[in-house]
């Protein structure tokens, strides 16, 4: 009978396509908006993601997200190094600097200071120059987007100079880094150099990057560091989520995107629901005939569910496929953030499932309450 359900479904081409378009549109809207939302959220944590090699971030207890800098004293570094299970702990500076270009223009930049000895937190992809060049006096490395923004139209090059805090900075390399939420150029330098580029303050240590001993659990070590130092210690993943939750709580971003996703869901229910219900109503006589001929209600329900699932699957595939193609097309061509993790696919799938089930319930009810005797009317 499933074969007959399929034939009934595709037999009415206009409604079949209408239902698929409804579900596909809802899937597209939900997946696309959710992916843009995820992309935006990823921007907020891009600098945590860019710092590889350290399992734990240690910071002031009141820090709420990665850009919420509350500097520590140098003594805290020594205290953290004294905690059992810490393999190594290094300084990490993060702040905003103001670059004064040769032409006299000013540009705000994200300034990252890496531990002088180890350069932990250095960019992973270097397009021009080498990491060792950072050890030179006044040396900085800039991300590609920042370079293109400061010197538009010029080829990537080393040797350019600018000033920060009245100190000369020389670009010794260009690297690739993730886009940031503020979109400022990212400047990497040594910690000691960064403290000179940054406006002077008594305390300048933004974060302490920590690696645990191989046999020590990172979460357990975080708890131990907090217990012994009173500082906030988070795994890299924990810090990512803390930052994301901060933006979720404190900004209207999730509400705005949530409304769009909800609209997509409602539109999907409305279009697909109405079309599917009309489809069921118009095919009611066919179902009444089948019931008269001896088809049980249970099998009728299975047929309708099968039709709904087929429509849902095809519509979902088209929708998320369209969203993925949209993401591919805008990649590197637009400033729009787009990130489609598997959770977006799963969430969209669940939303579509809810749509088709809701739609099926309406149709099933319409067909089940129908008396087979209606075939004689």
């Amino acid at each position, binding site marked *: *009978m499933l*074969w*007959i359900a399929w*034939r*009934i479904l*595709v*037999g*009415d081409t206009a409604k079949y396509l209408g239902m698929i378009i409804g579900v596909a549109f809802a899937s597209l809207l939900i997946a696309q908006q959710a992916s843009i939302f995820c992309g935006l959220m990823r921007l907020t944590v891009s600098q945590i993601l860019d710092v590889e090699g350290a399992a734990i971030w240690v910071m002031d207890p009141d820090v709420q997200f990665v850009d919420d800098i509350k500097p520590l004293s140098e003594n805290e570094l020594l205290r953290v190094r004294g905690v059992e299970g810490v393999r190594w702990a290094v300084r990490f500076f993060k702040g905003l600097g103001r670059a004064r270009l040769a032409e006299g223009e000013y540009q705000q930049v994200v300034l990252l200071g890496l531990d002088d000895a180890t350069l932990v937190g250095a960019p992973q992809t270097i397009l021009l120059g080498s990491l060792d060049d950072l050890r030179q006096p006044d040396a900085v490395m800039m991300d590609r987007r920042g370079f293109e923004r400061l010197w538009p139209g010029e080829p990537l090059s080393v040797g350019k100079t600018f000033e920060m805090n009245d100190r000369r900075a020389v670009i010794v390399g260009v690297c690739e880094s993730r886009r940031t939420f503020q979109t400022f150029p990212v400047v990497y330098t040594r910690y000691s150099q960064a403290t000179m580029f940054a406006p002077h303050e008594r305390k300048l240590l933004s974060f302490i990057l920590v690696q645990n001993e191989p046999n020590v659990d990172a979460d357990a070590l975080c708890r131990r560091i907090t217990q012994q130092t009173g500082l906030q210690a988070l795994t890299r993943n924990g810090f990512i989520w803390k930052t994301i939750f901060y933006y979720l709580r404190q900004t209207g971003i999730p509400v705005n995107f949530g409304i769009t996703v909800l609209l997509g869901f409602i539109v999907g229910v409305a279009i697909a629901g109405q079309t599917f219900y009309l489809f069921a109503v118009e095919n009611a*006589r*066919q179902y009444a*005939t*089948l*019931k*008269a*001929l*001896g*088809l*049980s*209600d249970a*099998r009728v329900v299975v047929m309708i569910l099968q039709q709904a699932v087929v429509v849902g699957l095809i519509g979902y595939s088209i929708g998320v496929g369209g969203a993925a193609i949209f993401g591919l097309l805008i990649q590197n061509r637009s400033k729009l953030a787009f990130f489609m993790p598997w959770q977006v696919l799963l969430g969209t799938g669940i939303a579509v499932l809810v749509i088709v089930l809701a739609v099926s319930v309406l149709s099933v009810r319409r067909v089940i309450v129908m*008396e*087979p*005797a209606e*075939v*004689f009317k």
Partner: protein
Amino acid sequence: MTMAVPQGEGLAVVCRAVTKEFRQGSVIVRALRGVDVEVRMGELTLLMGPSGCGKTTLLSVMAGILDPTSGSINVLGSDIERLTSRQKTAFRMKNIGFVFQMHNLLPALSAMENTAVPLLIARRPRNAALAAARQLLEGVGLGERVDALPSRLSGGEQQRVAIARALVHRPRLLVCDEPTSALDAKSGHAIMQQLRDIAVEPDRAVVVVTHDPRVIEFADRIATMDDGRITDVRETKA
């Protein structure tokens, strides 16, 4: 299954004091007002009468797709008013064939596929069901049109497919509701002839609801209804 009504020799359907009431808002419509009638095996019985006299309601009750308000109905030895909904569904699937006024073919299925539907409902393998359907369609002269969709068939051809569908699972009771009313006289005559030729068998009863006097010649017995009651039953020489 119970046997409340004594089953006479060769009786397919026995109705005793059957009533059926419908509620339309605050008004109660009495479609059947105590019907007593019998349908014999191996015969074609016509149920005749003016529009609204209760013919189709009685046919629906006999076929187990409508529950009577009161009275007893024994169909093929089963008191169907006592069966559960699920049992009635299974009973219809096994024992009853339907021919509808408007054919009620599934528009997305070919003639052969439509004919095979009762076998598919009975969970027969698809290939076997289609093979049986093809054979029956050849029997009603539609061997060349097995793959045609209903929209490509004439009214007469559609009704022949409907007859094939009604017989494909070899039911013991065939109920037909106005099978000729949507057809011209010639096609209607041909359909009745076909019903007479292939449907009427010693172990099968055929009940045809009609108000078309031209089909009387095909009947073995004619039950006339008026205002929800059987007013006359007479034998003919078909």
